[in-house]
């Protein structure tokens, strides 16, 4: 019998700036088991809901994550609006959807850069982040922030986008497509990149379903799951297909994310001419009472919010189930049987956000 060795991966590792710890049980150079442990960046954001008035908690909710911050704020607002039966004006809903899709583009481009960095392609990493800067500029111009937008509020949006700016955003994104194409061919066609991604970290469709994978991870395994299809916000106004892969390996997950960048650009292109005129928010008074669940599609997968309100301005409970949390069991499954050299690569393909997971 081969002697087993345990190698710790993280909590500090060059490939991942966030503290995820995995104990890798090795036989020779093959991983036979991976034991995850989290808990290094717990900040207790959920409990702050009992000390922060429900209208100001949006700013806390969107600080759960630095990358998918907009959708966290939007999910919280939607959950509160559902309890209070607030009807958000159509323009507010459309702008929120446009911002949510922009943040998906920026998150996926960020991930592409990090993935390139993980397999040791520094130049590709810089190119991906250079393209991402275009989206960050749009964000700063329209919301005032580059990664934390503070633009969602209970009852609508805090800022309006001028019609000519909206048209310009559409044109900028169309131009950006050319740039994305230039790095897409490297990710999907280059031999050395393919060598690091194809056939690595395979997650079968049955495993993906039984372990509860979400987002691009489950879609890359060939299962059509996308919370946007539930038709929240302005998604019913746009036509789009769920992008899936078949192989369930790192290459398929990369291809799904690249496909989703084009898809998001297309959704924004469809929404811009349909954006109605009118106000972006309604005044919300009173305090919520009751409880609600809200499911949204983050760039990393499905996120769930639960809110319990007691009729005062302070809520009782706020709970978030983030996509990375759901993707950790599939990750452990993927790591079994892989080479130790592929571990950083595989971990990165679930797009882990540990700060999100621990809140």
């Amino acid at each position: 019998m081969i002697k087993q060795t345990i190698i710790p991966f993280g909590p500090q590792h060059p490939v991942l700036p966030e503290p995820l710890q995995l104990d890798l049980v090795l036989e020779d150079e093959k991983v036979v088991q991976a034991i995850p442990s989290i808990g290094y960046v717990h900040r207790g954001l959920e409990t702050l809901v009992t000390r922060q008035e429900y209208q100001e908690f949006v700013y806390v909710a969107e600080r759960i994550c630095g990358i998918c911050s907009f959708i966290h704020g939007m999910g919280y607002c939607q959950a509160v609006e559902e309890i209070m039966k607030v009807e958000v004006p159509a323009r507010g809903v459309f702008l929120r959807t446009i911002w949510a899709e922009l943040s998906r583009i920026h998150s996926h481009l960020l991930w592409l850069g990090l993935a390139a960095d993980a397999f040791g392609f520094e130049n590709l990493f810089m190119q991906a982040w250079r393209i991402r800067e275009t989206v960050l500029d749009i964000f700063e111009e329209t919301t005032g922030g580059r990664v934390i937008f503070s633009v969602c509020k209970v009852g609508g949006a805090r800022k309006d986008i001028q019609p000519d700016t909206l048209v310009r955003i559409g044109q900028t994104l169309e131009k950006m497509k050319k740039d994305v194409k230039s790095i897409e061919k490297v990710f999907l066609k280059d031999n050395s990149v393919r060598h690091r991604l194809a056939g690595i970290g395979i997650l079968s469709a049955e495993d993906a379903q039984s372990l509860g994978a979400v987002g691009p991870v489950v879609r890359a395994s060939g299962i059509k799951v996308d919370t946007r299809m539930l038709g929240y916000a302005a998604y019913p106004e746009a036509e789009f297909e769920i992008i899936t892969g078949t192989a369930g390996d790192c290459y398929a997950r990369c291809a799904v994310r690249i496909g989703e960048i084009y898809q998001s650009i297309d959704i924004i292109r469809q929404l811009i001419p349909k954006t109605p005129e009118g106000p972006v928010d309604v005044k919300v008074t009173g305090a919520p009472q009751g409880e609600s669940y809200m499911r949204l599609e983050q760039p990393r997968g499905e996120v769930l919010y639960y809110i319990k309100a007691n009729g005062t301005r302070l809520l009782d409970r706020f709970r978030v189930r983030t996509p990375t949390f759901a993707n950790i069991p599939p990750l452990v499954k993927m790591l079994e049987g892989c080479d130790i050299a592929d571990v950083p690569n595989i971990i990165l393909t679930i797009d882990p956000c540990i700060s999100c997971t621990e809140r």
Partner: protein
Amino acid sequence: MGFFKMAGTAFTNLFRKPATLMYPVKPAKRFPNTRGTLTIEFEKCILCGICQKKCPSYAIEVDKTEKTWKLDRIRCISCGSCTDWCPKKCLHLDNAYTAPVTSEFKDSTRERHTGA
């Protein structure tokens, strides 16, 4: 399948301007909407204390008896909640970022306005 897929992009990069700015020699990009430093026109302020109540990071302190309005710049997250709620619209978010400070001494990071 293919080789040298990056070559074209890498080659054009040689003749392109740098994508980064030589900050602080060249000023950072800013937009009119950029949320930067919080400023107050104290003459208009009525010391109602709504900004203190609405601040999610507890950065503002208003004292009605002493007639002071204090801001802890390190705590401020430039969210703009106070500017939205201010009834006199005397709080503004400037689009320049707050200058970095070298110490966390409260005196050096707090602004003190004394009313007339």
